[in-house]
């Protein structure tokens, strides 16, 4: 059964795309060609089976994970007065601290690719591995997300609070200090690259707001 025109009619029939004249043409072809009939029957069964493959339910936490990874909206958000007055100072400070933090981890974990040394907002092409949120009602709110992208693992901080927030990131006996994480950027999120963490390894994040403990979060590399 090598007639391409008949084959096309068979597929179009399966997809419900034939008009009356084409249906009649196909019927004639099927009557006169047993191979065409076999192909038609096989493809019809195949399509019917494909159409009823069981639906797989997504993991129950999928939607939560997706939403927790989204950048916080900034449109119309009110900024505290200290932020309006000092935003450039804080932005410069954050850039400096994050660069220093990256260097610390470079020293601890060894050199990596150039692209892995970048800090900034979450790059596209990343996958969310874990997320931990601060309990509601506290002075500090938001979450920390562990992600993996083309450059490796990283932590993404989405925090909002009434003042500068510092974080102490500990894993595998190493500690990295990162300062001024909350509300110090626009959009209010920062990433810190991590490298060479093993599957199952825990990452502890201790947050401090104005020098006071503001929450402890724990994430795990899957």
């Amino acid at each position, binding site marked *: 059964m090598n007639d391409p025109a008949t084959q*096309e009619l068979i597929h179009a029939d399966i997809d419900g795309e034939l008009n009356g004249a084409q249906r009649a043409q196909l019927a004639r072809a099927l009557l006169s060609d047993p191979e065409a009939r076999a192909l038609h029957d096989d493809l019809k069964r*195949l399509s019917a089976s494909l159409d009823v493959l069981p639906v797989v339910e997504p993991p129950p936490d999928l939607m939560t994970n997706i939403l927790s990874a989204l950048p916080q909206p900034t449109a119309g958000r009110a900024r505290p007065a200290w932020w309006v007055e000092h935003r450039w100072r804080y932005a410069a400070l954050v850039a400096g601290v994050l660069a220093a933090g990256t260097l610390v981890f470079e020293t601890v974990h060894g050199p990596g690719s150039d692209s892995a040394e970048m800090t900034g907002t979450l790059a596209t092409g990343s996958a969310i591995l874990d997320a931990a949120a601060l309990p509601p009602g506290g002075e500090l709110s938001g979450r920390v997300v562990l992600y993996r992208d083309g450059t490796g693992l990283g932590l993404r901080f989405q925090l909002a609070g009434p003042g500068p927030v510092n974080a102490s990131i500990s894993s595998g006996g190493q500690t990295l200090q990162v300062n001024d994480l909350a509300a110090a950027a626009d959009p209010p999120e920062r990433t810190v690259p991590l490298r060479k963490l093993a599957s199952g390894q825990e990452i502890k994040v201790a947050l401090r707001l104005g020098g006071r403990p503001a929450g402890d979060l724990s994430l795990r590399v899957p």
Partner: protein
Amino acid sequence: MKEEDDATLVQRSLQGDGTAFGQLVERYQRTIFNAAMRMLRNTDDARDVTQTAFLKAFEHLRDYDPAFRFYSWLYRIAVNESLDALSSRKGGEALDGAEPDESPGPEGRAEGEQMGRAIEAALMRINPELRSVIVLRHIVHLSYHDMADILQLPEKTVKSRLYSARQLLREQLREYQGH
């Protein structure tokens, strides 16, 4: 109707309404996860692809052209993410669990279930680009027109790929059935 709804939710998301994008996630996460599962046959990879697809959609929401269907744009991102995930797999494709038992099953196993497993296995043996047209047509149940939009190919090419994919699946299944 649905188009208007999606467009409204996109507009609200762009205006900073965090709940609007959540509704889009709720609406499409199941379909995208299932498409990714059929493309990748691995739950963790399908979950990563689904998350990344929505994150990318959100980050690039301002680039979305409302002249096109939102879901076409979203599915395009998901298909590309799935193809990227497949191309980044080393040493073959990582599948959930062991290779499925494709032999004629024990008594009592429903014929339809056996066929389903055989089809899932056969799907993984065909070229990922051909697999993607099968997934869009038979799992996501899209028209040729929508598939052409998503794959950014002429409808004629989409049909040709779909026909080739079905023929290959048929051959795979005939081998399985001992023909």
